[in-house]
C-alpha cells in the first residue's frame, strides 16, 4: 500500500501546520498543506486524501470564539464533502484549534441530539477556568482503546497551549452520553509517581486541579473520538512531542529518540499499511 495522503488544512491564522505536516511526513505519509480557500473554491479536492488534519492556531483570530468561523465553513459550504469524505475509510484529526473547530462543527455530538428539534450544540470548548492562556506539559491517559490514533497506547505526555480548552457541557447527561458511547479518548491525569499527590486531588465533581487538568475540563476530558474510532480531537499538541528533546525533562531523564506524540502519527499512517 502506498503512503497515505494527508491534507493538513490551514485557514487564516492557522499556525501549527508546518510542524504537523512534518510529523506526518516523519511517520511516512505524503502531506499537502492546503489552504481552506482552495477547498471552499472546489470542495471535491478533499476526496483524494485518506487523512484530514486540522492543525492548531488561531483560525480567523478566534475572534468569535475559538474555532467558530472555521467551523461555520465545515457546517456550511463543506458539509456535504466532509460527509462524503468520512463515509470512506478515512481518518480525521483535530489538534487544539482543529479540535475546537471539529467540536463546534458538531462532529462529536451524539446521534440523539442531531435528531431533536433543538439543533444547538450540547457541548463546547470554552475559556480555561483560570481565564487565561496556558502553555504547560500534561500527562494524558488513553480512555478509548478503539481510537485508531491511540492504538496500543496507554498514556502520553504532550504540551497544551490554549486559552479556550475547557470542555463544558449543557448538562450532566451530555457527559454521561459521551462516556457511554466511548467518545472520551483522552483524559488529563496525574503522573503515577505524582510529585505532589495533595495538589492533584479532584474537586467534588471529579475535576482535577491545574496544572494536571490545565483548563478545568469536565470529566478531565482532553480529547474526544467517535464510535468508529477514526476521528480524534484533542487539545494537547502531539506534534510538539515528536522528539525526546522537546520534553521539558529530557536533560534530567536523559531521554533520547522519539517522543510520545510520534506514536499517534505513526498509528494514523499504519492504519493504511
Amino acid at each position, binding site marked *: 500500500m502506498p503512503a497515505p495522503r494527508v491534507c493538513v488544512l490551514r485557514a*487564516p*491564522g492557522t*499556525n*501549527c501546520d*508546518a*510542524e504537523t505536516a*512534518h*510529523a506526518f511526513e516523519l511517520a511516512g505519509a505524503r502531506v499537502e498543506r492546503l*489552504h481552506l*480557500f*482552495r477547498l471552499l473554491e472546489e470542495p471535491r479536492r478533499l476526496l483524494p486524501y485518506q487523512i484530514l488534519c486540522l492543525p*492548531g*492556531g*488561531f483560525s*480567523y*483570530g478566534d*475572534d*468569535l*470564539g475559538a474555532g*467558530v*468561523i472555521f467551523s*461555520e465553513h465545515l457546517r*456550511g459550504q463543506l458539509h456535504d464533502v466532509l460527509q462524503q469524505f468520512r463515509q470512506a475509510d478515512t481518518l480525521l484529526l483535530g489538534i487544539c484549534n482543529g479540535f475546537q473547530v471539529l467540536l*463546534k462543527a458538531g462532529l462529536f455530538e451524539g446521534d440523539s441530539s442531531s435528531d431533536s428539534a433543538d439543533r*444547538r*450544540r*450540547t*457541548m*463546547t470548548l*470554552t*475559556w480555561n*477556568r483560570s*481565564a*487565561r*492562556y*496556558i*502553555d*504547560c*506539559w500534561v500527562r494524558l491517559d488513553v480512555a478509548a482503546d478503539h481510537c485508531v490514533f491511540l492504538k496500543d497506547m496507554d498514556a502520553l505526555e504532550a*504540551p497544551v*497551549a490554549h486559552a479556550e480548552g475547557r470542555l*463544558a*457541557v*449543557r448538562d450532566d447527561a451530555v457527559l454521561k452520553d459521551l462516556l457511554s458511547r466511548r467518545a472520551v479518548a483522552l483524559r488529563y491525569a496525574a503522573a503515577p509517581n505524582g*510529585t505532589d499527590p495533595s495538589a492533584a486531588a479532584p474537586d467534588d465533581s471529579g475535576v482535577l486541579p491545574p496544572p494536571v487538568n490545565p483548563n478545568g475540563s469536565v470529566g478531565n476530558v482532553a480529547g474526544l473520538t467517535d464510535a468508529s474510532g477514526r476521528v480524534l480531537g484533542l487539545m494537547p*499538541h502531539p*506534534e*510538539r512531542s*515528536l522528539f525526546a*528533546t*522537546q520534553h*521539558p*525533562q529530557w*536533560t*534530567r531523564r536523559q531521554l*533520547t529518540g522519539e517522543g510520545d506524540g510520534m506514536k499517534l502519527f505513526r498509528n494514523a499512517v499504519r492504519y493504511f499499511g
Partner: protein
Amino acid sequence: MLWDVEIRPAPSEPDVEAARVLEEARRMGVDGLKEIRSSRAFLIQGKIDRTAIAESASGLLCDDVVEDMSITALPAADDSADDRLIHILFHPGVTDSVADNAAAALRRTGLDVEAVATCRRYRIDGALSEGDRRRLITRVLANDAIEHAVQGPLDLTDLSVGSDYDFHLKTVAIRDMDDAALERLSSQGQLYLSLAEMQTIQNHFRRIDRDPTDIELETIAQTWSEHCSHKTLAGRIHYREEQDGRIVRDLHFSNMLKETIFAATERIRERLGDDDWCVSVFRDNAGVVKFDDRQSVCFKVETHNHPSAIEPYGGANTGLGGVIRDPMGTGLGARPVCSTDVFCFAPPDCPEDRLPPGVLHPRAVMQGVVAGVRDYGNRMGIPTVNGAVCFDDRYLGNPLVYCGNVAMIPADKTEGRMQPGDLIVTVGGRTGRDGIHGATFSSAELTQESESISGGAVQIGNPITEKMMLDVLLQARDRGLYSAITDCGAGGFSSAVGEMGEHTGAEVWLDRCPLKYPGLSYTEIWISEAQERMVVAVPPEHRDAFLHLCASEGVEATVIGQFTRTGELVLKYADHQVGRLPMEFLHDGRPPIVRDAVYHVAPEAPCPIPDRPQWDDELQAILGSLNVASKEWIIRQYDHEVQAGSVIKPLVGIHSDGPSDAAVVRPDLTSARGLVIACGINPHLGDLDPWWMAAAAIDEAVRNCVAVGADPDRIAILDNFCWGNTDRPETLGTLVRAALACHDISVALGTPFISGKDSLNNEFSWEDEHGRPHTVAIPPTLLISALGQVDRIEQCVTMDLKASGNRIYLIGRTFDELGGSHLALIHGLCGGSVPKMDPHAARTLFQELHAAIRSGTVRACHDLSEGGLAVAAAEMAFSGGLGARLSLSGLSEELSDPVLLFSESNTRFLAEVPEPQADAFERHFQSSPIRHIGHVTGDDRLVIENAQGRPLIDSTLASLRNAWQRPFADM
C-alpha cells in the same frame, strides 16, 4: 436598523471580567462598589429583522452552552434605572477585528449587514461618588487612549465612520517665518525638529523659491526624526571624561555609533577573515549571521516605550508585531522562529496616591504589556522564549518594552535588489488614522498631556493580518516575485518608500492606497503608521502573479507607485502633485549638529553591609525581590513551544519551574543545529558606572548562552540603548561611555554586534497640584540580546541539579563587588565596587567551559548573576528538587562571607559534574580558576558553610522556592 446583541455568561459560568473589575476597584480603594455584572455586545447595523439576527447569532456570536443572549433595538428606550449601565466602545477607527470578522460571518449567513461594532458593558450596583465612578471608568473599565464610555442607555443610531475627503492642497508659508514662528510650527505641527533643522528646511525652500506643502514638511520631519535617523547617536559628538576636575579623555566623533559599536564588528570580521560568519550587519532591518550552509539567521530587538506608557496592551502588541516585521523585511524576507521580550516597570505595589497625573498604575501597565505581547505572539504562532523584567521607581511614567524577533532566511536571499521601474506594492493591512505622528512622538518626551496629544499614536495590532501576510510573502519570495521588501514601521509609507527609493527615486499615487474608512487626507495616508503593512518592489512582469497569490489567501495587495531613476520623491493624489523632494536633501540634508557629552568619573562610595551570623533571611529576600523572583505567570501565558523547535524551555527542572539561563530552539526540524537566545540587562549598575554596566550586560548575555551549551565563538549580540534626554551633556556622556565599553568588550570577546536600536528622551514630566514642574528620567538602561548557536542540541544542559553525589564546581573568580548588587538593593544601600570584567580572561573561560560541556562532563550549569553564588546555588537546588552542601573554604583569604555569598562578580558559573567525570572536567580548565565547592545531596536543604565550617545558609528547598515564587503568585 441598529441591533444590540448582548451576550452574558450563563448562570453556571463565572463572570471573569466582573471579578477582575471588583478586584482592581478594591485595590484602588474605590469603595461602595457592591456588585458588578459584565457582558459584551455586538452592535449590528443593516436591513435585518430580529428573528434573522437571533438565528444567525446563536452559535456564531454567542456560545449557547456557556452564554446567554438578548437582542434589543437601538437607540435604547430611555430608562432612568439604566444609569447603572456603562458601555465601553472603541473610538471610531480603532482596529476592531472581532467586529470585522463578525460582519463577514453574519454576511455569509445571508444577513444584509452594513456595519458591526463591539462593546463591553457593565452593570454596577452600589453608591459610587462621582469621583470614584470616574476613576473606575478611566482606570479600570476603559482606556481612554482607544476607548470611550457611554453611561446610561445607549442612544446610538448609526455606526458609520469617516466622511468623504475633499481634496485641497495645503502649503505652509515657511519662507517668511522668523525663528519663533519656525519653532512654533515645529512643536504645534508635531514635527519635533530643532530650530537649526527648521532653518535648513526654510533655506531649501527659499532656494527653490516656493513654499513646501504639508506633506513635504511631514516627510522631512519623519525622515529626520530621532526614531528614524538616530541623529543623536549616529551624529557628531564631543565627549569628555572628567575626574577630579581634570579632563582624562577627550574624543570627537563624527558618527559615534559607527566609530564604537560598528567599528568593533568591523575589527572582529577582519580578524576572522575567511571564517567571518557575519552576513549583514547594521544595514538592513535586522542583523544577519550564518546558521549553516543553506540558511542564515536574523535578529532584531526594538523598543515600543512611549506607546506602551499610554496604552500598554496596544503598545506592547504593536511593539512585538512591529519587530516581527523587521526580519520579514530583511533581505528578501525571513521566517520568524522565536521572539523575546524584556520589560522595565516601576514596582507593581506603588501606592495609588503616589501616581503623577496622566500615569497608569505600574501594575496595570505590567498586565497590559504582558497581555499585549502574549496575544500577538501566540496568534502569530511565534514562540516567545526568552525575556527579563526589571523594576525601578524611575520607570513609573516611562516603562520600557523591548521586543525581539529571530528569523531564518535562505542563504541566497539575504539581499534585495530593487530596480527602477519596479512597482511599489503595499501588502497587508489597510491604512487608517492610527499611529499618525508615531515616529516624531516617540522621539519626544512624555508629559501628562501625552495621552491627549498622541491619541493618534496609539494602535492596536491584528496578528492574523500579519500572519496571513507572512504566509503569502514567503511563498512570493520563494517564487521570486519581488525584488526588495521592507516593513512599514515608524513613519509609515513615508519611511518605507523613502528608504527603499533613496538611491533611485520614487513616485507614489496616494489616492490608490486602500483605506480602512474614507476621509483621510493625502498626508495622513502618507504618514499613517497603521499596522501590518509591508512594502515590496515588484518587477512589472510579476505584477499579476504577485497580486493573484496575495488574493488567493485573502491578503490585500495594491500597486501604489513605481520606483524611478529621477532621484526625486514625487507624491501624487489623483491628478495633483502634492509633494516633490530630492532624495538627497531628504536623506543627507539634515544639518550636522555637534552635541556635547560629558562624564564625571565619581569616586567609589562605601557600601556598609551589616554583619550577620547567618544569611538565610538575605538569601530569601533576594530570591523574593522583584527582579529575581519567578516570572512563571508571564512565561506560561506565552506559547513558547509552537513551531515544535523547543529544546531548552524558559522554565526547567523537576517541576518545570526553574529559571533557565537561555532558551534553545531548533529552527529547522531536519537539522540537529540549535539557536540559543539570551539577554543581559542590569540598570542598577548604570548608576555606578555605565562602562561596567555595559560590560556586565554583555558578559551576562554571553554567559547565559554558554551556560546552556552555546559555542562562545559563534555568539552575536544586539544593543538597545534606552536613555533619558540626551540634550543634557551628562546624560549623553553616560551613553557614550557605555558605547565605548561595548566596543572594547566586544572586540576582546570576539563577540560582534550585528544590529541595534536606541530610544532616547525616556523621561516623564508633570506638574504637581501646586504647579511645580517635575521630571523623572529613567536610569540609563542597556539591553544586550544574544544569539548563540549549538552544533548539536543533544549537547545542551539545563541549570537544575540532577543527581545526589555529583560534585559542584564554582568556575571563575570572585571579587569584592557588591556595588549595585541585590544584597545592597534589599538593604537600600548605594555605593560599593561595581562588578568589573576582564574580557580576555572571560573569553578563555567561556571557551574552556564550552569544551567541558561539549565533552558531556557537565550535568547542570548555571550562571552567577543577581544575588551571586547563594542565589545561583538556591535556584539550582530547588529547580532540581535536590539539596546541596557547599563550602566557601579555600576560595579566598581576603573576602568576607557576604562577599563570597552575594558578590555579583562577572564571568562565573556553577557546574554539576558526576564524580567519575571530575578529572575529565577539570582538565578542560587549563587557564581559568575552578574550585570544587561541594556536592549534591539527597536531602531537601541548601547548606553553605564558611571557611571555618560555620553554616551561613541552611534553608529548606521549600522555603527558598516559596520565597522565589511568592511575589507574583497572585498575578
